[in-house]
Each structure stands twice: as C-alpha cells, then as structure tokens.
C-alpha cells in the first residue's frame, strides 16, 4: 500500500531565515543537518589537531594542564561520532530517502524538524562543559565508570553531566529520526516502488533505522543510570555500594557497536548509488547486497563484547566467532562493489573518486579489524594506537570518504549547481594522502606498545618518528578542507548549472528539478526496476506516463537486450 494522502497546500511563502528556522521540508532540514554536521566536523577536527600537536614529539608542548588534553580527545571523539558522522548520514538520508522513494516528504515532517533541532542543542550543551569548573567531560568518549562517577578521584565537575544530557538528547533525536525513516519507507513509497526496487541507499537507511530504534534506548538507559549514580547516589556502577563497573560497558557497547554500523551502513548506501552510475552498470548482486546489509545489522547485535575482551568478564568464544563472521557479509559487499566497476565504463568524477577512496581504505579497516577478532592478538593490541588506526580506517576512511562522495554526488541536486571538479580532486588527493599519513603509522605505534589517551611518552620509547608523521598527516587533512569549503562557496554562486540529471542517474531524485520543488515531484516515471530512470532513458518502459520530460536523446544508446526489471524482477 503505497498511496499517500497529500500534505496540505503550501503555506504562504515565508522569507529567508524565518523559513529555514520553521521549515518542515525534508530537503531544507536535510541541508541543515549536513551544514550543522559539517560545522561540528570542523570543531571535532580542531580538537584532533590539538591532540596531534601535543603528540608530535615527546614532552608536553601545549597542554600544561593535562586534564585539558583528556577533555580534548574525549570531546573530539564524542563530537565526531555523535555530532558529525551519525547526523551527517542521517541528514543525507533525510534529504535523499523521500526523493528516492518518490514521496513528497518524510512521514512526520514536524518530528523531522524536532529531530534536527535537538542536535545543535545537544552540541552546545556538550561544549558548554568547557565553561564549567572542572572543564568538559574528560573520560574518553566511552566514559567508563568508576572514572565517570562523581568524586574527587573521578569526575567531580558538571562537564560529565552535560556530556550525559547531551548524549541523551542526541540519542532521542536519533530514535525519532529512525522511527520517521521506518514509517516513511514502509508507508510512503510511490506506486511501483516495491521493497526490492528500492535504491540501496534507502535499504541501508532502513536497516540503520532498525538498529537505531532497537539500540539507542539501551545506551539511553546506561546514561540515565550513570546520571543517577552521579547525582542521586545510585549504585548501578559504583562497586563500593554493590554496583558493577563492567555492567556499564556491556550496556554501552550493546548500543555503541551497532552504532558503528549506523555510522557506516548509510555510507555504504552512498557508495552503492555512486558506483553504478559512474560505471554505467547496475549494482552487481543487488539482492545479495540487501541480505548482506540485513545480515550485518543482525550480527551487529552479537559482537558488542569484542570491545571488552581484556576485561576478563566476557564469554570469549561466542563473541570472537561472531566478530569473525561479520566479516563475511562485509566481504560480500566489497566484491559486489568491485564487480560493479568490473567491465564497466568508469568516469572519474569526484563522487566516484571518493567512492574508490572508501573502497580502498575501508578494506584496510576491515582487514585490521580481523586482527582484533583473534582474541590473543587483541590482548596485545587492545587500547593501543592500533585500535585508533582501525577505527579511523573504518569511520574516516570508510564513513567520511562516503560522506564526501555523497556530498559531491548530491550537491547538484541540493543546489542546482555543480561543484568544481578540479577543486574536488585537489580535496581528494590532500585528504587521501593526509589520511594515510595520519592513521597508517598508528598501526606501528600500537604494535610498539603506545597506549591510547596518553598526553606524553618517553623520548626513548621508539615512538617519535611515527608520531611526527601522523601529526603532519593530520594537518594535511586539515588543509584538505580548505579547497572543499572554497569549492562549496564558489560553486553556490558561480557553479555550472546542473540540470535535473547531471550524472545520468538511475534513481528517482534525478527525475525532478534541481533543487526539487516543494513536495518534490510533479510526476513520476514508471517504476519497474531498481533503476527507473535508467529504464526511462533507454526506452525500456513500455508506455506509461513518465517518458518525455527528462529523456536526453544524446544518451539514448540502448543496449541490445536488457531484461526490464533486471535483478529486481
């Protein structure tokens, strides 16, 4: 059942900033998500550069108060995870999902606006910790008790409470967004848009939303318990009064491991949109890809304790086996992507280059993860810089490259103008080189025994050279943002006019104008496969009412025999 009662008529036009502050249009909200997330990306990046500057060489350079160092890496990670990657991908989804399923908006436009506005509020609360006595939260983004219990030996200041409240707010935003996505995807698809004709991006957002709705309440419970411990004398995690510190870790990671997939699945969705378009081929193994995505989502709930192998309080064989097994569906996706390019015709526009960056780097993030799945090896590598390397290859090499692929891909749709290709390639090269210089040496540092979260190290530990390389790389990543920001600012005014479908896209967002009008579509092409625009462009639709408008005769070079419907038939 995919019909939908149309929303009320467009209200009277509201100008400028008032329109943006009060909008319930998923496209405007999506763009605000993206901008807000990017601002927090820059804030989190500045904290990362402070940390890298301190570690460039042995000795204390800038953090004479080492507590501020601990605040810096804690806030860096919290901001990057909860205020950049998760909302950035949610923002791309908010913009794209209704367009890709042919819907006029999200199912609950006002809740959509609420979800967004909780994010800057949460971010401000988090950063407000710096203004309080004792500073911001300083116990790492994981905030393990007893270090986060109130008390002079732990975290006495209100910064930790602000961290808790901020995360509860952001989590609530996620839950509302997840429910909104689920209802939108299940109830508002256009006629003909069956589940197995949905773009992969929509599928990944669907699975992500299930993860969010199932897992986020669990971390919220951990945060509430910690708040009660700190402020009302609770005994959930306080060992002196019978609480169990490891309980927090179990509850925390029950959310935070699936959260890794929340952070990477939609980026995989972006890649799965970009690769087929720029290879001029359908995604290889569309259904297998969907089952792999669902499989990752399901297995993702059974691996959380691999973050706790060294606690001595984990049933090791189960979690080790599950952790190894989750490599299988991930590998399936990797081969699907590669075979999408295989025997294709690749056009190296910036979105494809970032997508290839994702493939090459996420591969390393998957492989170095297998080391930690081997429990004895994890005993050596856990809580060292190896893990820092691993998580950044997944979340930066994977998710962040995917995010930029998505931004370059959909910027023309969002703004009606193209981004500059040369600046985009400069951005990619700087970011790719900087990324590898920063994070690859961390493998060596971790193997050599450098623990995470230390402000300084001995000059004779043998860690000096790789740390210096990593810091130089960090600043190259920082510099790589300049051509990107310049590109966006210049292209908004003077970029080439994009037209409806600049990339020869396959999915419905390219069937409307750029940017799309309120409520998105005047008319929709027939949907007979997962590539309705491809079918339309190559005359594979028999009859129907969707032809004409967007057909580009120059590209009307239909192959001899393609079964309409393809894998989705």
């Amino acid at each position, binding site marked *: 059942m995919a019909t939908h009662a149309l929303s009320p008529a467009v209200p009277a036009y509201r100008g400028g900033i008032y329109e943006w502050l009060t909008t319930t249009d998923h496209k405007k909200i999506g763009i605000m998500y993206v901008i807000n997330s990017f601002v927090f990306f820059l804030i989190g990046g500045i904290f990362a550069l402070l940390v890298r500057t301190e570690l460039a060489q042995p000795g204390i350079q800038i953090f004479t108060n080492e507590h501020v160092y601990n605040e810096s890496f804690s806030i860096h990670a919290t901001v990057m995870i909860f205020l950049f990657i998760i909302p950035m991908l949610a923002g791309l989804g908010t913009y794209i999902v209704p367009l890709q399923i042919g819907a006029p908006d999200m199912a609950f436009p006002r809740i959509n606006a609420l979800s967004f506005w909780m994010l800057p509020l949460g971010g401000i609360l988090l950063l407000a910790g710096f203004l309080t006595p004792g500073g911001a939260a300083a116990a790492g983004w994981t905030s393990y008790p007893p*270090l986060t219990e109130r008390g002079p030996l732990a975290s006495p200041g209100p910064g930790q409470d602000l961290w808790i409240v901020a995360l509860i707010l952001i989590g609530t935003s996620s839950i509302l967004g997840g429910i909104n996505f689920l209802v939108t995807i299940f109830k508002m698809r256009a006629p003909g848009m069956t589940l197995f004709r949905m773009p992969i991006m929509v599928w990944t957002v669907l699975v992500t939303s299930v993860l969010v709705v199932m897992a986020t309440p669990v971390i919220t419970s951990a945060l509430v318990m910690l708040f009660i411990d700190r402020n009302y004398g609770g005994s959930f995690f306080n060992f002196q009064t019978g609480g169990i510190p490891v309980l927090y870790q179990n509850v925390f990671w029950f959310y935070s491991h699936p959260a890794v997939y929340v952070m990477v699945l939609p980026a995989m969705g972006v890649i799965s949109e970009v690769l087929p378009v720029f290879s001029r081929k359908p995604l290889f193994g569309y259904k297998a890809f969907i089952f792999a995505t669902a499989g990752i989502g399901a297995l993702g709930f059974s691996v959380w304790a691999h973050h706790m192998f060294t606690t001595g309080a984990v049933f090791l064989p189960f979690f080790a086996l599950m952790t190894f097994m989750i490599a299988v569906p991930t590998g399936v996706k990797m081969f699907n992507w590669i075979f999408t390019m295989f025997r*294709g015709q690749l056009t190296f526009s910036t979105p494809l280059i970032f997508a290839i960056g994702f493939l090459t780097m996420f591969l390393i993030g998957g492989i170095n993860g297998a080391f930690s799945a081997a429990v004895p090896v994890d005993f*050596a590598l856990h809580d060292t810089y190896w893990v820092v390397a691993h998580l950044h290859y997944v979340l930066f090499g994977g998710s962040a490259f995917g995010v930029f692929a998505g931004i370059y891909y959909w910027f023309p749709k969002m703004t009606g103008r193209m981004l500059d290709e040369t600046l985009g390639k400069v951005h990619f090269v700087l970011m790719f080189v900087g990324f590898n210089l920063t994070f690859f040496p961390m493998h060596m540092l971790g193997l050599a025994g450098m623990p995470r979260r230390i402000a300084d190290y001995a000059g004779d530990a043998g860690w000096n050279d790789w740390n210096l390389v990593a810091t130089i790389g960090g600043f190259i990543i920082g510099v790589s943002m300049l051509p990107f920001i310049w590109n966006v600012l210049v292209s908004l005014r003077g970029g080439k006019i994009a037209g409806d479908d600049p990339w020869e896209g396959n999915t419905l967002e390219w069937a409307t104008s750029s940017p799309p009008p309120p409520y998105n579509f005047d008319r929709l092409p027939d949907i007979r496969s997962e590539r309705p625009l491809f079918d339309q462009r190559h005359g594979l639709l028999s009859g129907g009412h969707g032809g004409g408008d967007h057909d580009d005769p120059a590209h009307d070079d239909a192959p001899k025999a393609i079964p309409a419907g393809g894998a989705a038939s």
Partner: protein
Amino acid sequence: MSSSPRKRPASSAIVAGGAVILLIAIVAIVFLSGAGRALYPPAPATAQAVRTSELYDIVFAIAVAVFLAVEGLIVWSILRYRRRPEDTELPPQTHGNNFVEVLWTLIPTAIVLVLFGLSWNTLNVVDATTNDPDVRIHVIAGQFQWQFEYLDAKGNHVATQTKPIGDGGGMAVPVGKKVQVTLTSGDVIHAWYVPRFLFKRDVIPGQTNKFEFTVNADEAGQVFHGQCAELCGTGHRVMLFSVTAMTQADYDAWLQNLVAIENATPPPAPSGAPVLKEEAKNISYVNGNLQAPANAPFVIEFTNSDPSGVTHDIDVKDASGAVVENQDTIPGGTKKDYTYQPLAAGTYTFFCSIHSNMTGTLTVQ
C-alpha cells in the same frame, strides 16, 4: 544477454596489470627490506607471547594476501575499465552471477572459521591458569601507581613492593617459572600492559582478574616496560611500571631484600625534633601549609586516607625546583613518620611524587 565484453585496447590491460604488479612489488620490497618489521609486534618475551606472536604471523599473512588480492582487483578495475571517448554503447548490464557470489561468500567464511579455530587454540594456552604456579603476585593498581604484593604458595603475604618506578620500584620475576598474577583496584579501571608480553588485562574494581605467564629463559636480566592501558585520569600516562626478569638466584635475593626492607624498623626520629602532621585525602593534602624550624631535623607524621591502591608521599623541593627530600610512598589506609634532614630557612614546596597536582608550601624559618 551478450556476455562478451567489447574489445578494449590492450594498452589498458598493460597499464592495469602493471599497476597491480607494482602494488605487489611495493609490498614485497617493504617486507624484504625489513621496513615491514614495524608491522610486527615486538619480540615475544614469554612462552604465551610466543604463541600469540605465531598467531599474529598467520593472521598477518592472510591479511596481506587478502589485501593484495582485493586491492589489486580494485586497481585493475579502475585502470582497465575507465570510460573512453568511443564508449557510446552501454557496457553489458550484468546484474549478478550466482556462482561467483556463492564463491565469495563461502571462501571468506572458510577463512574466518580457520582463523577462529587457530585463535581459539592459541587462546586456550595464553589465557590458561593453573593451581600450582611457582610465583604468586597480587598487583594492586591505584591512581597512579602500581604495587606488587608477593604471596607464598598458600596466598599469604610475603612482602610488598610499594616504591614507584622512579625510585627503583617495579616487579621482578624469575625466568622460566610460572608466574600467576591477580589484579585488583580500589578506585577506577586500570589495565596491566607489557608490550613485549603481547598481553594486557584490565584491573577492575570489585573484580579479581587472574592470568599467568612464563618469561623465556634467555630473557634473564631484561627489564620490560609496562604501562597502564586503560584511561584512569589525569595521571594515566605516568602510571608506569617495569618487569625485571631474573635468574632464580637473583630473584630469591631480590625478594629477600624486599622482605628485609619491609621488616626493617625505621630509624628513630631524632629526639626533640618537632613533629608536624599531614594527611592525604581525595588526592590532595588536607593541610596545604606546614612550618618547620630552620637548620634542624623534623618529622612529618603522615596519614594516607585514600583507598589502599592510592599511594602518596611527601617529597620536598626548593625554590629552584631541585628535589631536596625524597621519601618512600605509602599505600592508602596507612601511616608513616617521615624524618627530614635540616633545611636552610626559606620557602619550599612539598609534593606527592605520584600525583603532580598534590602540592603544599613548607615554610622553614
């Protein structure tokens, strides 16, 4: 559907194939030249670490093979199949291939199951504990120092090493002997980590963790660097320790010395010396200002009221920052009388050698 790809110029195959060979060559050169050494863990120093290291080698070999195969496939695809001006027709619209998809599901499954089996096998050695270890050590972790309590076969106290690493502290173990370590913490979570043992284990308050290791016989005389690996507060990075591997004879002498130090009666305070009082609580001195007479010995009666894992002392430095008095740390819940040598008149700083933020002013006049 036509399955044969259209003809592509041979040059693209040469370029793509060359790039893949280059990738393999670079990786080979890195490892053959020894530069790849940095991608291996340090030389294993215990029987358990040797097993972990062997497992690492296997995982690493498979990882490099998978990396080269998949990364090579990516490089091949992007160089061989770039779009050319003459590409006006669409490429074959392949939607999938059941055979290869089953293949690339089953082969990785087999690989990870083998890896699981191997790591399970190794884990049973690395993580095994017994009832008859040769040496028993109870490690007490506290912000931000380690103490090592040596126990006899029945688990009774023999002696405790309370000195911080800067004062000749740290643990010692005999080589070739089964050492069992139990870990406890009285404040927050720490982790006992020795890189050359390829091992760490969390020290969790309210929970006793246990593990065993046997240092290789050829490591006698080596001092292994150890460090807290779980963020435990502002002094996390200074929570260092060392493990000195000794022959059995050296170890026995070392332990006897430790017992002797512990049982020695402290020299009596000079009669008539003034007695000052100081207490440490919540990682700070209760009394931040002390006064002592110039050019005469004096005593500080020191009470450490923090949890047992948290050690403190009262050292003294002069206005230039030079340390003029260096006392031994005492664990939480204990008392000690420190005797200080005569000091010239002036203003000094007294401080805890474990907690850099614990300071007070000592006025000598």
